[in-house]
């Protein structure tokens, strides 16, 4: 059995008494009664809110986007044609979503990491470090979410953004514990002498030798000495997120250097 979606909206699905709603539309659209318009706005504001929550999750600040949705709601109220027999919602939902979508497109959201997401990533990074310093171990996503009053999904997205996009710069200024502004760039430099002290295992391949000293050190600490990323971060004075990125990049480079066709790998 197949049903096309357009036939499936029951006319009774509009909230409130449909007859009353239709009356309000008549008073506004035919008589220009602004009170009726205001009542329609109030009646359908929960719809605008609900759509903002659903469509705008994890993006711009909620209140900004709710304004955009409200504008869409006003347009829908002014243009709705009650004579066609469909409930207002079936017209209002695409109109409001369309307004939000246009807002996203116009604000460059399609091509940049959204501002909200960017800021959240930095917050997560700072909280992660703060909690690690306080407790000596890396926090869980739940702990970060609780600490920052965010959804766990927002935290997971932030971790993903930090991992994936260089646009979430680890050099962005952050507030230190004494509120002095420092950057990760400062805390990395001048360490080369220390790296030289590390004796790498005799088993290391020539591929490893091509990596910079710091990357080799991090690989060694993680995969030979079996330190956690947090312990490595503490030891060499960078953040765990940076250790994570370094490891990812180093492993990728190792794979590229040692890549042989599958047949070559089979003995």
């Amino acid at each position, binding site marked *: *059995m*197949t*049903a*096309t*979606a357009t036939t*499936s*909206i*029951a006319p009774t*699905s509009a*909230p409130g008494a449909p007859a009353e709603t239709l009356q309000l539309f008549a008073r506004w659209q035919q008589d220009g009664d602004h009170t009726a318009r205001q009542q329609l706005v109030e009646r359908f504001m*929960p*719809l605008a809110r*609900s*759509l903002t929550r*659903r*469509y705008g999750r994890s*993006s711009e600040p909620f209140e900004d986007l709710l304004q955009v949705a409200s504008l869409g709601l006003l347009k829908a109220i002014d243009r709705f044609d009650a004579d066609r027999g469909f409930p207002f*919602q*079936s017209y209002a*939902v*695409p109109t409001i*979503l369309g307004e939000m*979508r246009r807002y*996203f*497109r116009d604000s460059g*959201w*399609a091509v940049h990491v*959204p501002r909200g997401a960017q800021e959240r990533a930095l917050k997560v990074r700072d909280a*992660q470090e703060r909690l690690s310093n306080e407790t000596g*171990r*890396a926090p*869980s*996503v739940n702990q*970060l979410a609780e600490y920052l009053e965010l959804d*766990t*999904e927002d935290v*997971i*997205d932030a*971790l*993903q953004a930090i991992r*994936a996009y260089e646009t979430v710069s680890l050099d962005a200024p952050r507030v230190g514990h004494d509120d002095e502004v420092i950057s990760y760039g400062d805390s990395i430099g001048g360490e080369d002498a220390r790296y030289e002290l590390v004796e790498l295992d005799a088993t290391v*391949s020539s591929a490893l030798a091509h990596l910079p000293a710091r990357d080799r050190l991090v690989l060694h600490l*993680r*995969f*030979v000495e*079996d330190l*956690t*990323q947090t312990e490595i971060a503490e030891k060499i004075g960078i953040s765990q*997120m940076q*250790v*994570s990125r370094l*490891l*990812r990049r180093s*492993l990728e480079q*190792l794979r590229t250097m*040692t890549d042989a066709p*599958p047949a070559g*790998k*089979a*003995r």
Partner: protein
Amino acid sequence: MGAAPNVRLRLSNRAENVLLIRQALSGLAEAVGLDAVALNDVSTAVTEAANNVVLHAYEGDEGPLEVEFSSTAVGLDVLVADRGQGIAPSIRSGDAVSDGIGLPVIQALTDSVEFRDRPSGGTEVAMHFELDQARPLDDAPGLAVAGEQAAIDPDRPEGIVLGVAPTAVARNVVPRVLSTLAARAYFSTDRISDAQLLADTLVSELDGAVDGPLLVGVTVLPRNLELRIGPLLSGRAGMLFNGEDEELGSILGRLTDGHAVSESGTLELLDLRMAQRG
């Protein structure tokens, strides 16, 4: 539809799994170069359809939820299915989602949508999105019929099975799904990063070692992830840990907390365990 899916998720209709579906979709979107606004459209519609299965397919009980994403030359096809009494009748009546706007939202965001009963029982929502993709997959082979995933089914009903092809998609999807599950298992952020590194390593090293698409079964336990990966060509699972590439073996050994290889016909399955330490 027609096109073979690139990502298939088989999971239970628990509310927490909707997040997993969104993460898998985000990975696919990255792989094919979908912009953020288009992704938000698809993600919102898929969330509505999946929430319907969560809330209504099994009348309060737990049951299977299946999602497939297929990237085509002209856009994206998404299938959200259950084996229950049917989302379609409830959604058609317009009151399926508590406040009754799930359906209008799906309609507004898709280019076409169909609600169907499945011949094998259950119902499905088939959504089509016409989208520009910066890196379309062309004709890279996707996943075949669903039956082949049986070999990888985790022992527990709440387990999750992810099928993904080709490798270019797996590279983006598998790390996202694994790290989301690691977060659910209460892993710390550094161990979540390890889960991502493990996913990266497996996807790369198993390219060419898998018989067909890469299947990953995952069971989430408190502070533990159990993975089953395959079906691998004979001998390939052991080579990861004990092959000529000793570095690879030690890297995998440090990222995981135990592994085992089992035979499945002429093929192999690799079981891996990751634990939160300390």
